[in-house]
């Protein structure tokens, strides 16, 4: 069963976004996505300081099956990346929604988050795919 927390927002390309108290947005891939991709072997993260546009590809997750682009759900500046993943890419498999987060963005326009799916809509998307 997929873990789809209700406090996160989702894209149809299977990224989640979490609005933190300080107004920054933490981004990762969903539990469903990590399950499909299988064991991670390498995660390529963007440079801190880079400006990204919403839906721009800015990271790559490589599993034993495939390498997949990751798209930023919101526009803004990359202010932190999860350096733990360099040594331990399996964190994405073990804890996609928390310890396996990818990068942190200071968003330009917080309302972009409203365009994303909530947990219910994302669950329906996955169900429709079944």
């Amino acid at each position, binding site marked *: 069963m997929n873990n789809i927390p209700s406090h996160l927002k989702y894209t149809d390309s299977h990224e989640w976004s979490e609005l933190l108290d300080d107004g920054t947005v933490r981004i990762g891939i969903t539990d469903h996505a990590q399950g*499909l991709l299988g*064991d991670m*072997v*390498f995660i390529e993260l963007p440079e801190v300081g880079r400006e990204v546009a919403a839906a721009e590809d800015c990271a790559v997750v490589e599993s*034993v*099956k*495939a*390498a*997949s682009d990751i798209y930023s759900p919101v526009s803004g500046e990359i202010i932190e990346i999860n350096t733990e993943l360099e040594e331990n*890419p399996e964190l994405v498999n073990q804890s996609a929604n928390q310890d396996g987060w990818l990068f942190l963005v200071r968003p330009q326009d917080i309302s972009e988050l409203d365009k994303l799916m909530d947990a219910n809509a994302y669950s329906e998307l996955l169900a429709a795919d079944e």
Partner: protein
Amino acid sequence: MLIFEKSQTGRKAHAQHVKAGSLKDIPEHFLRKAPPDLPEVSELEAVRHFTNLSKKNFSIDTHFYPLGSCTMKYNPRACNTLASLPEFLNRHPLAPDSTGQGMLACLYDLQEMLKTVTGMKGVSLSPMAGAQGEFAGIAMIRAYHDARGDDQRTEILVPDAAHGTNPATAIMCGYKVKEIKTNAQGDVDIEILKQALGSHTAGIMLTNPSTLGVFERQICEIAALVHEAGGLLYYDGANLNAILGKVTPGDMGFDVVHMNLHKTFSTPHGGGGPGSGPVGVNERLLPYLPVPTVAYDGSSYRWLTATDRPETIGQLSAFGGNVGILLRAYIYALLLGRDGMERVAEYSVLNANYLMIKLREAGFDLAFNDRRATHEFIVTLKKQAQTLGVTAMDVAKRLLDKGYHAPTTYFPLLVAECLLIEPTETESKQEIDRFIEAMIAILKEAKLHPEVVTTSPHTLPVKRLDDVRAARELNLRWRAEV
């Protein structure tokens, strides 16, 4: 066991010793002081080591090899024998054109044949593999737009079913990549394409038939839309086998195409090949073809270089490309003739459809149930993965036990738990029937004894490999223990 680990100091295999020539003309400071640290084994040990290694290999000479989108067909021995004639083998690439008219005539004829096969106006044989052919193709599209001062075109469109090399090629040529979704029937989603097209569109990269094992039915409409927006169409020749002699990329509206001679024209594939990826172009890209190409003025043949063709994107190989491979493809094309090429398409498609229908009857799910296969098709094991815990990877591993090279697994990425199966035209009905029996037997095992499948292979020298650890902890060379 590595041959290094079998080494015993002082042991020699005299028959395999290569005698060094005179070292007189090599400066003293380049000569090594100590012998190289090579394994020391007897003649018998060397023979036995490499014979046993070769027996562990899966190859087209030993096994049915239905690797989808790779066209692993038989490499006729005649092609190898004729391309190995001493007059070809011993020719130095810097020797003057006048002493190599025979070889140049073969290459010129090959250029002409590939023009006919692709419906293009010009061909360059020099790209040394598929990826280089792709690079040449997109570099020419870029040169075309640049020459017209049309430099706001920054984007290449690539369908989500494409080979991974397509977006990589576009990026290498300085373009941004826009992915175009495929619809439920396996065709490009025309509405999404329309929205993506614009004055920023440099071109689109398409494989037709696509990697989904179906023919893109709207290709003429796609070509019209892309051309209307000012973009060009690039044809990835990976699946040319299915249409050989039947229809050409030129007929479909493509402007540039690369071919994989190591697929469609049966030159050695895998294990280093080497490959060969000629490119063909229509009128508007003609000036940009990579050099050298072979020209014929009615009496003699010669290489054309950048001096003759100043607008070329340049030279991609030191000399004329992988000429030994080009000769093999030339001989293959001559052996087939025009009718033979059509039969390649007919039998590769017939074999794929026969195999597809038989597997469906046996209870396998197809990714595109209401579509006819091209030269390949996709089985999805989504149901088996959910209900039995048996994945596409498990079935692929079990096939090895049964003496078959596995089909392509987990590609294309948009079909869950998929096997992409391409039998090619060189397999007999009897061989395909044996493969069907093996697949049926595995499906039965998956239901009755799934653990037999999920822990396979059982009969190979190595069992289930830990591919996660292999990818994370690379171990690429032998090191002497100190």
